[in-house]
């Protein structure tokens, strides 16, 4: 004798009820957690920007953000201006850190003008210009923030990724890799934009030559490294006209 649960009607009713229950459960959890998640993401962006300009809780080896409790106050303390560069137009916008770089990149692909956020921070009497970058790694998106001085010399960098391989590509968010960028020149000797290449066989493992536009690659993470080089080149190049206006 076949069981009650084997009938077609039972199976269909079961499937419908299950979808309804699971669907509403997921929708409820999503709507309950969404506000907190959005706040967390906003704070993370502020922490990223602060990290790139050297406001962080780093110890000797590991990379640490300022704590979430103080992130907002530190952000308003250190970030003096938030600019949005849109073609030739430069406007101040205190919500510039919420600009979605991914959306702006796709707008640019459709031929529209891309909005470029730039954060101007001051620390110990020094001015930092922090710009967001975004690109592709091996498996998924990679992104980061690079802080520069007015000569486009890197003062700090923060990189992050969505799903790079742990131990390999995921190491772009390790101190040893991010710290290598400090002091690197984005412009070459002729003052034109060269970017920074994550280079294999750099023969400069301690990265002492800061004017070669190269940092040492991570073994086994070639594609992620190429992604980092590419996003630095394509995204930071867009800021060159702004930096030129600083020198006038």
């Amino acid at each position, binding site marked *: 004798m076949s069981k009650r649960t084997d009938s077609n009607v039972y199976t269909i009713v079961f499937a419908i009820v299950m979808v309804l229950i699971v669907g509403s459960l*997921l929708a409820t959890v*999503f709507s309950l957690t969404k506000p907190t998640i959005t706040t967390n993401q906003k704070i993370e962006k502020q922490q990223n920007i602060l990290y790139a300009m050297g406001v962080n809780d780093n110890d000797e080896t590991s990379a640490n953000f300022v704590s979430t409790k103080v992130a907002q106050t530190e952000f308003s303390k250190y970030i003096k201006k938030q600019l949005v560069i849109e073609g030739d137009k430069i406007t101040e916008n205190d919500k510039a850190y919420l600009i979605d770089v991914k959306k702006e990149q796709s707008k640019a692909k459709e031929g529209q003008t891309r909005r470029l956020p730039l954060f101007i921070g001051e620390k110990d009497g020094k001015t930092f210009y922090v710009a967001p970058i975004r690109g592709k790694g091996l498996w998924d998106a990679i992104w980061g923030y690079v802080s520069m001085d007015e000569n486009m010399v890197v003062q700090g960098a923060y990189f992050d990724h969505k*799903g790079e*391989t742990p*131990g390999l590509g995921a190491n772009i968010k390790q101190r040893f890799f991010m710290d290598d960028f400090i002091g690197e020149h984005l412009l070459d000797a002729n003052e034109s934009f060269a970017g920074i290449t994550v280079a294999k066989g750099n023969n400069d493992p301690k990265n002492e030559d800061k004017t070669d536009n190269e940092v040492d690659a991570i073994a086994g993470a070639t594609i992620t490294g190429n992604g980092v080089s590419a996003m630095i080149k394509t995204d930071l190049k867009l800021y060159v006209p702004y930096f030129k206006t600083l020198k006038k």
Partner: protein
Amino acid sequence: MGLLSKKDAALITDPLADNNPITIQVLGICSALAITAELKASIVMALSVMAVLAIGNVVISLMRNIIPSKIRIIVQLVVVAALVIIVDLVLKAFAYELSKTLSVFVGLIITNCIIMGRFEAFALANGPWKSFLDGIGNAAGYGLILIIVGFFRELLGSGTLLGLKVLGDPIEKTGLYAIGYENNGFMLLSPMALIVLGIIIWIQRSRNKSLIEEN
């Protein structure tokens, strides 16, 4: 009598050795190869799978008498996917830092064959308590192998353990590096994980001949 009966205790201890999900049942190999380049990642993955497998097993076990057999695999998938999404959302809201560390693993949990394997082979036929223990046991067995592989890959590949430089500094040439030791970059690549796993299986079967299948 202790907390667990002999049979119940076996549900936890068997998967650790003679019925290990990776080395004997050959389940969960993909994640064992993919994420074991770091010891920390292995531990995080092991704990995440333990949480999802234990809760999922209990849910499937509670539903076992009402699940229509024709769509049982879909039901199992829905349960594991829903659990993983809920765990992910809750972590993002209340343990944001941890959720970022876990991001790469959360997706992998859904595709982990051990989860579906245990739902199908155990939870559909046993009560919730036994299923819970089975989930814990199998995830522990899986985690044990992940941690062993992760230990050797991180130690030999990067010269570190949990990020700490245990063999010295390869750039400053201190510790073992001072006498000419070099990190083995191959260990960081997935094929070497397969070889380490093969060695574990070899050692296990040579110690316990009853595990060797007859041709």
